[in-house]
């Protein structure tokens, strides 16, 4: 009979074990988040990522090998974005009534996200080429990567900053909006989707379906607005 190390080295080379472990880590993270009463800090993405990063580190597995398995999950991001049409469709009437507040929240959230990030980073002495990767941090990853590249920033760094922004947004949104006394699910969802894209939208969906629908529209609209806005704002800051 083959020993454990032999079986492991055989399995670890294929996609099955990494796909399974990705789902296991998420199931564990989601259960922990539920036990914690969906507390913002018990973010399931953050917990699952930490569990898997520790596993990869402990087993000496390169990310490329891990991604062979995890790519099947990653691929679903595209279809899930299309599926965001479902909450939009269900909230259609409510959305139509709120079109002006939606556009106001989008414009203000989008401009504040880009301008404040660049202003703070520049004041702290961050290099210009890093600013180019930072500018689109509030948009969904494929858009941010495209924008960063067209501005001369690193696409990898842009992806890192996008994910950090999403996780931070998902963590701060609930306590922040409670503190500000914003109780309207539409306002809460939209602002979170605009500032923290898909990860913020995932958090909003977890909290309330109406917040999720407005987060989805915020994310989609901000992808378009930031693509138009970021190059102009960056020029001011360089």
């Amino acid at each position, binding site marked *: 009979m083959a020993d454990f190390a032999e079986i492991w080295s055989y399995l670890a080379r294929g996609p099955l074990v990494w796909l399974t472990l990705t789902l296991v880590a*998420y199931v564990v993270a*989601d259960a922990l988040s539920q036990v914690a009463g969906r507390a913002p800090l018990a973010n*399931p*993405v953050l917990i*699952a*990522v930490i569990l898997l990063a520790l596993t990869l580190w402990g087993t000496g597995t390169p*990310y490329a090998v*891990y991604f062979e398995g*995890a*790519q099947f*999950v990653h691929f*679903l991001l*595209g*279809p899930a*974005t*299309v*599926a965001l*049409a479902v*909450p939009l*469709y269900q909230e259609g009437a409510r959305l139509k009534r709120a079109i*002006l*507040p*939606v556009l*106001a929240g*989008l*414009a*203000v*959230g*989008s401009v504040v*996200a880009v301008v*404040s990030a*660049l202003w703070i*980073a520049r004041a702290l002495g*961050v290099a210009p080429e890093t600013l180019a990767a930072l500018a689109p*941090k*509030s948009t*969904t990853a494929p858009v941010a990567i*495209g924008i960063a590249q067209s501005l001369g920033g690193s696409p990898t*760094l842009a992806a*890192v*900053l996008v*994910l950090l*922004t999403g996780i931070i947004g998902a963590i*701060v*949104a609930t306590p922040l*909006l409670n503190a*500000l006394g*914003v109780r*309207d699910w*539409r*306002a809460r969802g*939209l*602002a979170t989707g605009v500032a923290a894209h898909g*990860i913020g939208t995932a958090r909003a*969906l*977890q909290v*309330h379906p109406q917040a999720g629908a407005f987060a989805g529209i915020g994310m989609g609209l901000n*992808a*378009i607005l930031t*693509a138009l806005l970021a190059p102009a704002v960056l020029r001011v800051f360089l």
Partner: protein
Amino acid sequence: MIQALTLILLCQLAGEAVARALGLPVPGPVLGMGAMLVLLAGSDRVAAAVVPVGQGILRHLSLLFVPAGVGVVGHLDRLGAEALWLLVAIVVSTVLAIGAGALAFKLVAGLTGAGQEAGPRDG
């Protein structure tokens, strides 16, 4: 379910093709979302098939960010000496953007009579 998944993928595919063909800065799946919205609004049969499947996918949207998130851990050193400053910029600007966006929504909703709707603690 297979019909719904097929429609979802067709919308994504159409979105990708249009985005690429016209050189749009918007990602294909976001255009696909728009196409799906048109289909849902246009046909009750499509809505009946797609709504439950779409809800099923979105229930665990968080899961789909996990592989990319694990990739980020390996690139945290990319942040380099500027890591702390970038983190400060991201945290502060995300707080400001969420707060300002939500307050702008609330203000305009009040002005235009789009009103206040139920929120947390309102039941």
